[in-house]
């Protein structure tokens, strides 16, 4: 009988003597994502990016915090708000941006777009745009790791909207009975498109207790705190690699923009937005570093500048890239 109980993980605390380079790298990743997403918004309004565009602004601490614990042989699977994960996983900024521009130099040669970012060589197995649909895929990747004994694991990101899909429950069940090396990472940003999670979820907006009913150890953390994310992920991944089977982390977070570019987010009140803006990891994290004298303002500015430059050159790269050849229409349908 499974007796592994769910328990909420308390907010992680910073150890004063953390590695400075590591913190600066976390900050660099968050700056890169923020700057990338702002550039996406601008390029979308210019018509250079089309289709649906979902910005990750506000949730940067999660992507940055999780990826630090992963290895090359691990797999990452995520949802359609996927740019942040792609960049944090180390995908080429130029090629991610070019994919959004629909150019031949994009990771999918312009056939996937914003919601479908892939880089198989980096184990980045996709942004997926059917809510919850990526969960079984991740279980299969974890199964392959287990089957082949690679020592790798799979991490799957999903939102609070996905937890009401049947496959969410099915996948937790399958992962638990097969002890799959799989980390379920729930980014609970409190809204499924424009509908508040509390309006669609029986039992409240805390979702991690469900994992316990499948015998999966679960933690809940502050998704605006990159160090808490990093710490919780590090612990869960260690246990998964040790063969303890799947783990579950719920991070409470918030997207500062609407669901997509077409969404003015009128369903949220200003007080709520202001509260979450006040917890912006792009403000709180550098402030903490300054307060604890882990970095100087100049050092932080250098990091920001490098992120800005990287994004600016990605935009330039994308604008200068050719569109896919017409013949690409018929390639990659079959192997």
């Amino acid at each position, binding site marked *: 009988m499974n007796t592994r109980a769910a328990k909420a993980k308390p907010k992680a605390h910073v150890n004063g003597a953390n590695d400075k380079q590591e913190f600066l790298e976390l900050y660099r990743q968050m700056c890169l994502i923020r700057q990338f997403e702002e550039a996406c918004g601008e390029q979308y309004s*210019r*018509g*250079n990016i089309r289709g649906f565009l979902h910005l990750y602004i506000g949730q940067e601490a999660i992507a940055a915090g999780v990826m630090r614990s992963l290895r090359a042989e691990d797999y990452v699977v995520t949802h359609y708000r996927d740019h942040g994960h792609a960049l944090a996983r180390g995908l080429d900024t130029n090629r991610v941006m070019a994919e959004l521009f629909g150019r031949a130099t994009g990771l999918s040669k312009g056939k996937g777009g914003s919601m479908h970012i892939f880089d198989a060589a980096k184990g980045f197995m996709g942004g997926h745009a059917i809510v919850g649909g990526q969960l079984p895929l991740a279980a299969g990747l974890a199964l392959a790791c287990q089957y082949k004994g690679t020592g790798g694991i799979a991490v799957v990101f999903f939102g609070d909207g996905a937890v009401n899909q049947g496959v969410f429950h099915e996948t937790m069940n399958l992962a638990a009975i097969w002890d799959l090396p799989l980390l379920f990472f729930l980014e609970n940003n409190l809204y499924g498109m424009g509908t508040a999670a509390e309006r669609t979820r029986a039992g409240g907006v805390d979702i991690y207790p469900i994992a316990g009913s499948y015998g999966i150890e679960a933690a809940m953390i502050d998704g605006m705190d990159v160090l808490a994310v990093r710490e919780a992920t590090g612990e869960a991944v260690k246990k998964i690699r040790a063969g303890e089977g799947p783990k579950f982390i719920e991070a409470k977070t918030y997207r500062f923009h609407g669901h997509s*570019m*077409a969404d003015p987010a009128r369903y949220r009140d200003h007080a709520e937005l202001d509260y979450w803006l006040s917890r912006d990891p792009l403000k709180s994290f550098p402030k903490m570093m300054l307060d604890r004298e882990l970095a100087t303002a100049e050092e932080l500015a250098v990091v920001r500048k490098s992120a800005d430059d990287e994004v600016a050159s990605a935009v330039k790269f994308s*604008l200068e890239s050719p569109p896919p050849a017409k013949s690409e229409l018929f390639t990659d349908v079959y192997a």
Partner: protein
Amino acid sequence: MATRVTMPSMGADMTEGTVARWLKKEGEAVKRGDKMAEIETDKTVVEMEAYADGTLLKVLVPEGRKVPVGQLIAWLGQPGEKVPEESGAPAGPLGPAARPAAPPPTSASAPSPVATRLAAASAPMPARPTPPSPPPTPVTEDGDRTKASPIARKLAEEQGIDISKVVGTGPGGRITRDDVLNYKPAPSLPSSSINRPAPKVIAQDIPLTSMRQAIARVTVRSKTEAPHFYVTVAVDMTDTMKFRQHLNEALAESGIKVSVNDMIIKASVNSILKHPKFNTSFAGDKLQGHADINIGIAIALEQGLIVPALLKCQGKSVVELSTMARDLGNRARGKGGTLSQQELTQGTFGISNLGMFDVVSFAAIIVPGQAAILATGTVKKTPVVKGGEIEVADIMHATLSCDHRVADGAEGAVFLTEIKRNLENPALLMV
């Protein structure tokens, strides 16, 4: 350098947007991330953010205007900076005319896909090649399409067989492959149709006589000015025909012969006396009454139709009317004098009788200035039901054409019924 602010694309399906409200005024400082304007799309209102710091130099699209995505709507720059010459395309709903012919590039070097597409859209479309016309379809002699399967047609063509000569044995008489394969052309015979010259159709122009021109003018005027309506009754003339026979027997020595038409004239006069409205002319603001009842009689001449009138018919007996009518007819045909101007122009009510042509019924055109015209058909022996029995009766159909400006349907019916009552009761014709 001033920065272009263009109508943003805020959704995959957005092609145009309306500036609902400018949140910054000209001359106002703008910081990157500030909300500059509210943009109304088909679905919602979204806020447009500034992507650069600066001052809102110039607003080119006023609130409430709808413009295509990508169109220049404002300039952002340093205070006092001069706005470049380029201005927004004429604002208006998205349409070919409103599209900029060649939108300038965005601040980045390459033109945006939107701009490229707009440019492409304004380029002339290459002419579409005309598809080759389909080969003519075989047609059977009765004009129907020959039903033949595609392979049957193909084989027939290859073998030089006229497919319309092949008898189809397939479903619905379709000519099948086997029908063509088994087809043996019949030995050729001389044409079976008898050599008979086709009747010649005379196709010559006929110049209009002045009478024809007058008729054309008058009937068009009548039908244009007077809204006609028609009321028809069947008149049982049995008793009247007997009466007429007796009367004519009695008058035989005097040489007077009362016709059916004479009795119709008398019945009309009697009815007009009772319903004088039918002896008026529509005169714009009134119905102009006439002191005399002048019954116009339609007379078919070789050159055409004329409708001269019997003047002052009121108080005249059927015999007197008969005499007058014969005289009028003669003069109309150029015998024993001519028609007076009065007779030709002063009719107040018309009668047209085609009874001699075995016509059952017809409707006549009112002579302009008159209120109505009565059209009668032939008197014909007809089985009728009387008191539950079928009897043979002399039936005549009478149709009254009325000027609706003068009278309505019910009035026309009442008036025509009065004529019918007179015709069915010969005693009334003697009054």
